């Protein structure tokens, strides 16, 4: 499977009379976009704002972030099984609006939503302070059930991203990147001397608004399976998560999974990137046992020499992480795990809820309990009503002057467990 990702570089976003891209500027017809998103009867009102890097703007509560992409050639469309039909995606050509993102906010869906500051100390912790953001403020109709609310806002993000990306469909991209994974046996034959490396991606599937979807399927209902890495670049995996902001994988993270991109960079040079095994993080012990059994079984079946495992979220998924690690290691396959830490505000507590000697190679995204003070911003998109109650916030987080003292847990993407952030630690 071969995919060409065409990057259309977006340097600026402005409102205009027509949605189009010219000289690196994305113009957005605000009324047309609002009309499109308002078609959902679950939403009482929709507004759109723009937030640019360096502006004194705070966006909260941020639910999802989506990168606009459009299929130019090849089967299917972006977000298969969700916005497009369930065709297998990941081949042909896809254009990406690089440097911009769609963000969803409004009345909070779940209590675990995030903060994105476009400037100041908080901006350093989130990748979305560097993107030109088209922010949807979605307010639900009265009495809407939480899960319907979640779905409505999730779809709003995808629809807006697809709408904006359409403007790039016929454009010649500024840069092109090519990713290719051969069918299994051919791929093994091509690099017989390189170590065979796979990626086990754990998807957040605890339910109760902690969900991830694969080709439209609620991933808590899957058994682990194999997916071509390029499929995720076309939106095969999307976020429906209202889990802690710092270590949830937004749809933007899924589309740009740095583990996949880095493995491709080394593919054919230092390693043979064989493929991706996706698995889940369910709330029944039997599910945890079954899924980790299967991820280990598939890793063995693929004849892998080494595996990178990434987690999503924290707490009981630490057990899924350790089970995956332990069971894959028991097959004689080396593992490296990527996680983050909840080691207390002083960093002195045990970092993960579970542990095992097999987990002897660990990459951390940072300690989510670290406290940060965020100065007031000139403008707030969304609302500050939930600052004291979002995960990472506490009574008195929001001061009268508009400044905020929170754990970095509250900042979208701060301790991302795919490594889509800048924090880590070294120990020997």
């Amino acid at each position, binding site marked *: 499977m071969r995919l060409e990702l065409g990057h259309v570089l977006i340097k600026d976003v402005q409102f205009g009379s027509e949605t189009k891209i010219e000289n690196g500027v994305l113009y957005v017809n605000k009324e047309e976009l609002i009309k499109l998103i308002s078609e959902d009867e679950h939403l009482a009102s929709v507004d759109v704002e723009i937030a640019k890097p360096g502006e004194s703007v705070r966006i909260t509560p941020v639910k999802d972030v989506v990168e606009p992409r459009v299929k130019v050639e090849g089967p299917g469309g972006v977000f298969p099984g969700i916005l497009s039909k369930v065709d297998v995606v990941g081949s042909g050509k896809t254009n990406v609006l690089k440097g911009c993102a769609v963000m969803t906010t409004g009345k909070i869906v779940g209590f675990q939503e995030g903060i994105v500051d476009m400037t100041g100390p908080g901006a350093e912790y989130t990748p979305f302070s560097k993107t030109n953001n088209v922010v949807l403020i979605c307010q639900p109709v009265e009495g809407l059930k939480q899960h319907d609310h979640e779905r409505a806002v999730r779809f709003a993000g995808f629809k807006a991203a697809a709408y904006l990306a359409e403007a790039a469909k016929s454009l010649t991209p500024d840069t092109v990147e090519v990713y290719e994974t051969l069918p299994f046996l051919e791929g093994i034959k091509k690099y017989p001397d390189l170590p065979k490396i796979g990626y086990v991606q754990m998807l957040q599937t605890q339910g109760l608004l902690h969900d991830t979807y694969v080709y439209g399927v609620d991933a808590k209902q899957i058994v682990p399976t194999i997916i071509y890495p390029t499929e995720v670049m076309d939106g095969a995996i999307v976020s429906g998560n209202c889990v802690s902001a710092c270590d949830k994988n937004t749809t933007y993270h899924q589309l740009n999974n740095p583990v996949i991109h880095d493995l491709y960079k080394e593919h054919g040079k230092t390693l043979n990137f064989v493929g991706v095994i996706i698995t889940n993080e369910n*709330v*029944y*012990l039997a599910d945890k046992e079954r899924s980790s059994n299967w991820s280990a079984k598939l890793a063995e079946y693929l004849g892998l020499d080494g595996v990178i495992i990434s987690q999503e979220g924290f707490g*009981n998924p*630490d*057990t899924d992480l350790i*089970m995956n690690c332990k069971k894959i290691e028991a097959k004689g396959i080396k593992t490296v795990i990527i996680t983050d830490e909840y080691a207390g505000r002083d960093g002195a507590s045990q970092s993960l*809820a*579970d542990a095992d000697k097999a987990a002897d190679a660990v990459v951390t995204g940072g300690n989510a309990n670290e406290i940060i003070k965020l100065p007031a911003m000139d403008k707030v998109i969304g609302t500050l009503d939930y600052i004291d109650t979002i995960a990472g916030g506490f009574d008195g987080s929001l001061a009268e002057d508009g400044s905020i003292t929170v754990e970095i847990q509250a900042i979208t993407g701060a301790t991302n467990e795919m490594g889509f952030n800048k924090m880590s630690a070294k120990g020997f």
Partner: protein
Amino acid sequence: MVKEVERAGIPVVHMCTVVPISLTVGANRIVPTIAIPHPLGDPKLEPHEEKALRRKLVERALEALETEVEGQTVFEMK
């Protein structure tokens, strides 16, 4: 909490869903429960069935409390 209470000389049964974590933290008597969001219940059951389930879990826990153990022991539901 499990360890501190036991340190004071009072035996403890840890009823929990994620048994591996309980084993890692060092509980001695463990009774596996239903699911993380509802350890001692099951919303899919009828109220009378759920009551019966709860009674069984508690009885199993009391049984575990009365049982001498040599080391970490998991008391699976019968």
